């Protein structure tokens, strides 16, 4: 049974396609277009080694014609397909950029809401208070105390609102790797 499966050409063909697809996705997500294009090229070339599968992917004409003749015969179709591929790719890249920015914005809003929760503001105030107690520099200690008071006040007012007093603390939190 296993021998039958392993000797079937279609099994290896589709296994190869799946593996190559996984690699392409990986390289695309890692922003490595060179590796992605190389993997794509090897996938196209590997099709030549599986003539029994040409029919299933719409290349059955290659059985009757040589590759140059087949290319000449289907030149316009191929050009149209490549053109459509490029246009769709540009449209998709734009849409994907929008998705990325939306994802980032959602992440930001989610984190902001969590940070502005009254409980988190109180714990931030305590954290800043302890920073102030341990700090030897006067200006920095004053700043921490001021921030701690602002967090306490904001928590007492119910939180969930980024006031002018909280903005420098939130900026510090965002720019300083979520640590104060």
């Amino acid at each position, binding site marked *: 049974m296993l021998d039958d499966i392993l000797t079937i050409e279609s099994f290896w063909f589709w296994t190869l396609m799946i593996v190559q697809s996984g690699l392409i996705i990986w390289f695309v997500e890692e922003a490595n277009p060179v590796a992605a294009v190389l993997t*794509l090229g090897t996938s196209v070339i590997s099709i030549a080694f599986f003539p029994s599968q040409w029919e299933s992917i719409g290349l059955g004409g290659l059985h009757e014609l040589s590759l140059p003749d087949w290319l000449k015969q289907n030149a316009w179709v191929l050009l149209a397909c490549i053109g459509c591929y*490029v246009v769709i790719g540009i449209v998709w890249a734009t849409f994907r950029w929008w998705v990325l920015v*939306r*994802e980032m914005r959602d992440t930001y809003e989610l984190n902001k809401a969590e940070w502005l929760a009254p409980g988190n503001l109180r714990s931030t105030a305590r954290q800043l208070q302890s920073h102030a107690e341990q700090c030897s520099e006067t200006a920095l200690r004053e700043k921490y105390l001021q921030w701690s008071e602002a967090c306490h006040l904001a928590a007492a007012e119910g939180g969930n609102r980024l006031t002018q007093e909280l903005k420098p603390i939130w900026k510090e939190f965002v720019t300083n790797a979520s640590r104060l």
Partner: protein
Amino acid sequence: MLPDYKTGRARNGVDGLTRPDPREQTAQIVSWAICWPWSVVWTFCVYNPFRYIGEFVLREIQTALYEISQSEFTGIERDLALDPPPFPLRESEATERQAMVKQAAAPASENQASAPAVPPPESQPDQAPEQHPAPVDNSAAVAIATDEPAEDAPAAQPQMMPQQSPDAQSPAPVTWSPPQPAPVNAVSRQQLHGVKHADGMYRPTYLSPNGVSTEPAIDPWTQKRPHSQ
């Protein structure tokens, strides 16, 4: 994902979040464009952009419907509002309105200091109060009913004054924001409860272009004073 913006970190925090610049992410965008079939599969499986598309479409539809209902109900809300929002004024009108508000607010501040000083200074308590035929101006009352001192009363309505020179040819775009509930100060409290007179009776006060009066304006239709005592 972006080299300086790791997905794992982004989902756990906002560390070092900056505005993404397409010029810095050329490799990523080219990858998306070249290998778009694989990117489509992965994006739809992992990021589920349908929620963004749904939210976007829903918000656009809601905005359009809100604008429709707002435009259709503007007149109705103006009719039903007790303190109707002032119309956007041109500069000349706004200046007139400010002068009127100042004039009306000045006696009010005097009244606050020494009540009952509601009747005009020249009228005697046993005489009939001065006639005020001009209609009551509600928008002026809205402007007065703030916590600001009398001198600052015109500053209570900055949004209805367009930033436009008097000789401008085309009217400048006018911004308007919905009126906020006015706090009750001395003037509005007087208007609400009236002022205690020498005979011990409380009589309502009315705001007229000439100041605060104890008599309501004459109704132009009936030629009578409403609620006249």
